[in-house]
């Protein structure tokens, strides 16, 4: 990330120290994670100790210190989805992708996350992939849904023969 891009973000908030959360959010939105160099640069510019920036970056769920996959999967674990079997969806994702929530596949294609509620309870259980909603999910629908986003279009686990 170019330092000029970070400068532009800082400028939007008039360089105010209290805007650190907003600045980090903009950085995260742009890069999909918070690169170490960007945080160091930010600390220097705003005169905030790096440990404070890291404390914020690791406290809030919205931030990631690791690069994310091309597609971000959010399995909703809200109460309404939970009582309709969201855990099974999460388990099936885990099984199909071989990663746990918070992890990214080796080919950098998918990052799996769980969220506390997407607020689309009528469609539960819900999964959002890159902001697109897939409602009334069932473990059986996971494979087909993922297929649309697979980079190599390779078949999922179940296509054994």
């Amino acid at each position, binding site marked *: 990330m170019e330092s000029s891009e970070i400068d532009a973000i800082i400028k939007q908030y008039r360089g105010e120290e209290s805007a650190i959360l907003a600045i980090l959010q903009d950085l995260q939105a742009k890069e999909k994670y918070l690169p170490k160099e960007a945080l160091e640069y930010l600390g220097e510019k705003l005169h905030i100790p790096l440990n404070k920036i890291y404390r*914020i970056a690791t*406290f809030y769920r919205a931030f990631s210190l690791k690069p994310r996959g091309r597609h971000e999967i959010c399995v909703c674990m809200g109460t*309404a989805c939970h*009582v309709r079997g969201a855990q099974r969806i999460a*388990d*099936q994702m885990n099984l199909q992708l071989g990663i746990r929530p918070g992890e990214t596949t080796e080919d950098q294609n998918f990052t799996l996350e769980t969220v506390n*509620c997407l607020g689309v309870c*009528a*469609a539960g259980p819900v999964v959002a992939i890159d902001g697109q909603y897939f409602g009334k999910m069932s473990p059986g629908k996971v494979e087909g849904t993922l297929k649309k986003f697979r980079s190599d279009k390779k078949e999922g686990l179940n296509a054994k023969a």
Partner: protein
Amino acid sequence: MRRLSSTQELEKLRDEILKKRDPHQPFITVCGGTGCHASGCHQVVDAFKKVLHERVKSNGVGLRVTGCHGFCERGPLVVIHPQKIMYQRVKPEDAPAIFQETVLKGKGIENLLYEHPTTGEKINTEEDVPFYKKQMRIIFGNNGSIDPTQIEDYIAVGGYRALPKALFTMKPEEIIKEVKKANLRGRGGGGFPAGLKWEQCRSAPSEIRYVICNADEGDPGAYMDRSLLEGNPHSVLEGMIIGAYAIGSREGYVYVRNEYPLAVENIGIAIRQARDLGLLGKNILGSGFEFDVKVSRGGGAFVCGESTALMASIEGNVGEPRAKHIHTVISGLWERPSNLNNVETWANVPVIIDRGADWYSQIGTEGSKGTKIFSLVGKVNNTGLVEVPMGISLREIVYDIGGGIPGGKKFKAIQTGGPSGGCIPESLMDLPVDFDRLTEVGSMMGSGGMIVMDESTCMVDLAKYFMNFLKDESCGKCTSCREGTKRMHELLTDITEGRGTMDHIDLLEELGWVTAEASLCALGGTAPNPVLSTIRYFRDEYKEHIINKRCPAKVCRAFLKYRILSDVCTMCGRCAKACPVEAISGKTRTKKEKGIPFKIDEQKCIKCGMCFESCKFEAVEAQ
């Protein structure tokens, strides 16, 4: 748009807007709330745009994308005015017919109308649908008729009428008196009287005071505040301006979850529009009063819904609560007197000022006045947002409005108050909903999540679910909360995995008590509620797990066994194909070969339930 500098100018603008709008002119509203968005309302909007563009005659037929109508279960929702004909589950390909038949000829289209679930009768208008009939939509009602990105729409329905009334005809003390008289209690969950809070903040000695809108709606299964902020942001803003005038504040914040992008966008647009019109900024409507609002986006931490944590977060710090020996109304944001109310509370303010406390306090019960918006979700037929007068019974909400439990299953419990609330059993279904009664039975009003559960929900698993949530969201400052939630989660995991003893229940109760007593903020203070309330009302279910090693709801996997009934099995092979771990063996029947019924190897089975789901003949049994 010109800046308004007096009440007369505002009223003149209102007249101009209304004159331009012929009430008999047909127009189409499409619900643009997140629920309908998920079911594809944007394609429907595009389809209507195309139709309206193609037809020359359509000149003058308006199309409006509105906020959430509430009936998310039946989205995308379309309402045709002036007749207010409501269509549900509309698809893009329905647009031409709706235009041709309903907009031009005023005729209803049968198959898009809502069908009464018991009588089968087709229902034409929104207000006749049972889901809406028992509701009282004084806060939420305008959502369905205004475009949230157009301030004119809000003004047209009488918006910004309470503001000049407050600024020019009432003293700040009188406004506070009115809010106190209306007995408006905080809708964020605590139920603290808003007028009292305002008064304390006003009398705190300081030159600078802040008003804050808490839109960090973190309870899973609750989305009322989002829908208000997305669908009618000006009503929240108007409430804040009136509040700021009463309290003597010049600066306000809206702290909103960044996970709600549409809400962030719409409140931002609303603030800009209000500024342009002179409803925010210096010398509001020529009154000399100055006030402006900034938006602060949250970072996805549940604990930031707590007032002191939220303020720390606005200041650019980690969102950890602090002890409230000195209340935030005396020393809050940047150590200045700060008044924080939730979205729905603010939205109630213009209604109280406009219609008066006498009118407002007729609604509700002795201790809880007005209405409350709930998000009715889970195992219920009509999922959606409902606004009901306080004092209505849970039964009316679940059965009359919610349409009961789907699939003929048996109702088990209702959970209110989010992770801080508790479960209410069938025997208390006639309980009137108000702040005090819900607290009495071990739950709480909370921000308004209402999750319905049926016989297939395991209460121990549910308690474990909430404890898992809370242990992740505990900020870690207080040992009792950080460790208490973790240990309670471990104990519950033990029970759901077959390692539980009766001592586990005693320990849970003891730990729950300590966690509640020794933690600083409401997160820890209420954390044991889901555990304690399920033990209180569903002790037998805990015992069943511990003594008989059985999960009656067939949820806890440790006790679950899948089995294929060989006499029912048609040997289609679907289950074996679906099984991700090749635990199912047998032989598919073909025209040539006889086949062998399939069976599950228990050693290999991971109990994912794929076979159960894939079988079309109910040959897979869960025990």
